[in-house]
């Protein structure tokens, strides 16, 4: 399967923040079997994140409020990246900033590193614009992505939030700023309150909704972007659990499919998809998954 310039042996990759450094899950299966490993988003400085509780289960989904706990870009480059490379994994870095400048600084750090691509997680609050999420505005999207693509030789994917009126508009803004593709979708803004006590269940107050509950939102987002630009590579994610989900995402327009929350319930979730996908296709006489990309009727 082709993901823009990248040729992946399987379209199954990991969703940022749901696979830590890679080492943890490598204890359960050979993670070099994956199409790529998208690392947890790193920031310029280390972050210890939000107070616990950091998660709550919801109906067929979960809310999380981690607050981007991460060791910082330098530590990731020093400790985790070499391990991934050594392990024979195609590593995709993920970066998160609070200002346009931080995205540029992060890109500078990544320049020349042995990474296959960069995912710019721009579903982050822009502190210079009253905390508005970058990916909620085409201009802010273009600015942040422009800084990153300008500096890097590897493909850059813009990771977008579904909490917008028209996600295709944002995707095209990212593309026009040089993004090689987009990653759809990040979590939805959500919240849970204990009815008895009135306390927010998450230490951080609000959180991000992920898991099977959001799958229809992801499919709609991917489809909308693919229709706006069928040539734009898309990494699809949001509630993927089964081979059928993978195919549904590809038909909607995904070029690769990332497994997030499903790994929490089953550490081998992504691996099972890698194994099952070829058989599913063969059983139905499909030579290649990529032939199904965007193959949807009735919409």
């Amino acid at each position, binding site marked *: 399967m082709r993901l823009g310039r990248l040729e992946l042996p399987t379209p199954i990759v990991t969703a940022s923040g749901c696979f830590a450094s890679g080492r943890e899950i490598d204890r359960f299966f050979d993670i070099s079997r994956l199409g790529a490993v998208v690392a947890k988003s790193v920031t310029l400085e280390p972050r210890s994140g939000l107070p616990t*509780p950091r998660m709550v289960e919801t109906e067929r989904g979960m809310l999380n409020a981690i607050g981007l706990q991460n060791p910082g870009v330098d530590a990731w480059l020093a400790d985790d990246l070499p391990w991934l490379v050594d392990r024979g994994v195609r590593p995709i870095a993920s970066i998160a900033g609070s200002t346009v400048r931080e995205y540029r600084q992060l890109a500078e750090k990544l320049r020349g590193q042995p990474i296959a691509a960069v995912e710019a997680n721009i579903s982050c609050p822009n502190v210079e614009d009253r905390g508005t999420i970058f990916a909620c505005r085409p201009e802010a999207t273009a600015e942040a992505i422009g800084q990153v693509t300008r500096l890097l030789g590897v493909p850059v994917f813009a990771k977008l939030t579904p909490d917008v009126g028209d996600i295709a508009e944002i995707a095209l803004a990212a593309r026009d700023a040089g993004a090689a593709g987009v990653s759809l979708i990040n979590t939805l803004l959500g919240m849970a309150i204990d009815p008895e006590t009135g306390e927010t269940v998450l230490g951080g107050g609000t959180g991000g909704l*992920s898991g099977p509950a959001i799958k229809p939102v992801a499919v709609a987002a991917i489809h909308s972007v693919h229709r706006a630009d069928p040539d734009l590579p898309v990494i699809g994610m949001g509630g993927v659990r089964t081979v059928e989900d993978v195919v549904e995402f590809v038909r909607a327009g995904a070029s690769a499919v990332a497994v997030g929350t499903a790994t929490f319930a089953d550490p081998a979730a992504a691996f099972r998809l890698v194994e099952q996908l070829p058989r599913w296709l063969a059983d139905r006489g499909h030579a290649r998954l990529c032939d199904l990309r965007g193959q949807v009727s009735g919409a």
Partner: protein
Amino acid sequence: MVSDARGQEPLQSTCEVLAHRHVGAYHLLTIVAPEMAARTAPGQMVSLGVGGSGTLLRRPFSVAGVSRHGPWAGTIDIVLEVVGEGTAWLARRSKHDAVDVVGPLGRAFPVPAQPVTCLLVGGGYGAAPLLFLGERLRQENLRVDVLFGAANADRVYNSIEAKRTATAAMFTTEDGSLGHKGRVTDRLDDVLDRSGAGVVYACGPMGMLAAVTQVARARRVPVQVSVEEDMACTTGVCMTCVIPYRTRDEVRNVRACIEGPVLDGKRVMWDRIRDPSMSDGGPGGET
């Protein structure tokens, strides 16, 4: 003072329930898992998939014992209290049912290198993994004392086994139905005076662990605690289960599921747990 003990790599497998028994207020599940049983040390946990219900994520449980031989190959024991949907589902499993098990997970209780007396302080089902540890410590010819507490006699896990394991065993219940009326922490100083324990192992509610640590700190006794924090993945990838912890010179949020659940009580920053002012995370919604 105590040697560091890390468990071996975890496995995942679909295992058969061999037996389901009631022990006081708790359910004891014995699960056939030979390879896991062979590599599990006391203090480590397993996480079980809960299906059939609307829930999504795994549920973590301390291992309460293993049997490595016998006609059924190796088994692991889990002691569980029903508190919600997931534990209710597990409590409905019976002989021959299948459960998805991942384990052993996390850091085990370190075993003392010196011949000291070990005091096990357990609250509720927290006593179960301590009895597993006690067995192990006795194998090392160490003296084991026990101080277990709970709301009532029914919730003091297996006091008979505790008396068998321990040189001295004391119990507390909040309603006075077994042993002393009150909490384990009311008796801790007293028990430490008498046993002269060189190390304390504690497992139970977080409030109890903090209080035990405080007493141990005041008496300069090492204390190893098994902590609990809400866990989404149990395998170290999600960062939901963190505990603020002092390592060398820095304070870091360590993952209870793989860097714990057993931690050095004195390094845990008890007053920073769940403290909003400690956050440097982004505004709400950030993952």
